């Protein structure tokens, strides 16, 4: 909870308010009441600006580069108006001129404008002449709101507590079962012991079970039965040995632990990012391509925390930690929003790996044949942890080549050869096999 207060503490003019909050923080009800009271006063102080309309405007116009409590491409904007007024003596008029055309303000030689422009790596703020005075006052009303963090923290904590209690109860049930089982075993042992003692006391002989060997010796003496059994065992072991040797080198289901927990489920499933966004060379090259980290940073420059569904195992903290790992590898200083230049390669563990004596080309399958990635890689958009879906054996390749018809529609690549070959084979639709997809030299050379 302290953290959220620290962001407030950055602004000296709100020190007194912060003190008040600290003072009352044990009593949450009172705090939230206080917050509402403060919220309403600060809203009315904003010359009639509407923070709700301001939020919508902020999200469409400003949020690409600015956040309220966080430095992004541009500076954090909470209390921007009062800060500028108190620290720099700049009024609403200056701010409006800056918002509508910051480049013009910089050109006019304004000292603070030049300073802030240089401080943020000469990133040019888009001119927004379309914003009216009312729009700007709405946006500023939104930035003048106090952070709602204290109310959110206990809610999150409660949810977590509820989730973890669900996890504990499962373990409790298992533990109780184990204890019950142990008690039963001990009970039976005790009963047995007591009964034996009674028997001894009353001089009753207990017949110990005599191990009967009659069945076994009969079996050994029967030669026919022995023969049948040994043939059965030989066949069975041949079957299992064959099965074992056939699965050697097949990595279906291989699911290694990666250095960064990248969830395809979140990226490709929930956010519907196309496979080829990251694996762009699958379109044009042999290799599908492991995205370099600048592609991660295309989005994660803006997305610094996880905001989706969580479970006990995969909590928000866990995912946020993984984003931190990405920042460390890419050398991105999140606090100052700049690259440090200290990068380190991420050692991804390769999952799909054909033997080197087999040639495979992604672009042939993705661009020419127009296959969906899921045909071979399975439901990747549902995989929290990536695994190998297909066996990637030669038989698997051949089966698909025998069954799959070639895409001829709008495909100049095949037009002529398809016409001639279909005449030769006397078929309407050629399969990949009939195009030569079974020839050894296509994949092994």
């Amino acid at each position: 909870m302290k953290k959220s207060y620290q962001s407030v503490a950055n602004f000296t003019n709100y020190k007194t308010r912060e003190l008040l909050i600290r003072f009352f923080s044990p009593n949450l009800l009172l705090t939230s009441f206080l917050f509402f009271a403060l919220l309403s006063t600060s809203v009315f102080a904003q010359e009639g600006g509407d923070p709700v309309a301001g939020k919508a405007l902020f999200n469409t116009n400003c949020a690409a580069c600015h956040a309220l409590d966080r430095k992004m491409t541009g500076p954090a904007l909470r209390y921007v108006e009062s800060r500028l007024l108190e620290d720099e003596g700049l009024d609403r008029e200056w701010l409006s001129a800056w918002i509508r055309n910051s480049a013009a303000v910089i050109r006019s030689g304004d000292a603070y404008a030049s300073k802030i422009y240089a401080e943020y790596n000469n990133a040019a703020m888009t001119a927004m002449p379309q914003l009216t005075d009312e729009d700007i006052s709405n946006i500023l009303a939104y930035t003048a709101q106090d952070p709602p963090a204290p109310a959110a923290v206990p809610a999150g904590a409660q949810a977590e507590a509820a989730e973890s209690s669900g996890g504990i109860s499962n373990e409790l049930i298992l533990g109780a079962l184990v204890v019950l089982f142990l008690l039963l075993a001990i009970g039976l042992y005790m009963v047995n012991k007591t009964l034996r003692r009674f028997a001894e006391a009353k001089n009753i002989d207990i017949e110990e079970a005599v191990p009967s060997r009659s069945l076994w010796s009969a079996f050994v003496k029967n030669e026919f039965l022995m023969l049948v059994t040994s043939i059965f065992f030989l066949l069975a072991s041949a079957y299992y040995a064959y099965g074992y040797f056939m699965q050697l080198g097949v990595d279906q289901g291989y699911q290694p632990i990666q250095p960064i927990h990248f969830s395809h489920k979140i990226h490709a499933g929930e956010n519907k990012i196309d496979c080829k966004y990251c694996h762009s060379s699958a379109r044009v090259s042999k290799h599908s391509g492991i995205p370099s980290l600048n592609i991660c940073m295309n989005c994660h420059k803006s997305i610094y925390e996880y905001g989706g569904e969580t479970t006990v195992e995969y909590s928000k903290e866990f995912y946020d930690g993984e984003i931190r790992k990405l920042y460390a590898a890419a050398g991105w200083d999140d606090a100052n929003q700049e690259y440090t230049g200290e990068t380190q390669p991420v050692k991804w563990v390769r999952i799909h790996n054909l033997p080197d004596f087999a040639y495979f080309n992604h672009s042939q399958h993705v661009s020419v044949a127009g296959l969906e990635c899921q045909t071979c890689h399975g439901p990747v958009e549902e995989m929290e942890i990536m695994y190998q879906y297909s066996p990637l054996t030669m038989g698997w390749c051949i089966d698909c080549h025998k069954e799959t018809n070639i895409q001829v529609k709008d495909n100049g690549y095949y037009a002529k050869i398809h016409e001639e070959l279909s005449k030769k084979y006397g078929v309407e639709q050629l399969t990949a096999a009939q195009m030569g997809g079974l020839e050894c030299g296509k994949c092994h050379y």
Partner: protein
Amino acid sequence: MRGLINIVVLAVLLISVNSCKKDSQPNYQFFPQMYESPSYETYGEYDIFADEQSALIPAEGTIPRGFSLYEYENTNEDYELAKAELKSPLDSTLVDVDRAKELYDIYCGICHGNQGKGQGTLVKNEKILGVPSYADAARAITEGSIYHVIMYGRNAMGSYANQLNEEERWQVTAYVLKLKEDLTK
């Protein structure tokens, strides 16, 4: 009692054989020398390279075959310059709208929206905010500025130069202009 021991031994054996197959470990191979030749793999780790990776960027001062030089720097001045004077080498007959749409939907539509209104899936999911519409009058994008921004990125947007080659960038540029026209109609 001996029967019990036999059963336990058998169970232990079965379990240990079973547990040898772990999903987090790759399977055994018949002839590893044939499966993994000594040549460098695309993303391999080898001592000989800087950072031990075989994935390298082209040597300084060289460009890959089929690439051409881009004369503009990644600065605000050159952005304005490209916006004013850079023209597409593709004439209307060379623009392949279907392919451009496919590329646009993969690389741009996720944020900018498939209509270019700035309402892509990531914006709707509130992951990335403030993506402008192509019709935004204040930005007044031109083919030069579109290409320049795809090349270098701008502010929160990153560069797409390594996902799209030169010709593809111009195709996407043409498609973005088409979307802008449709929006301002």
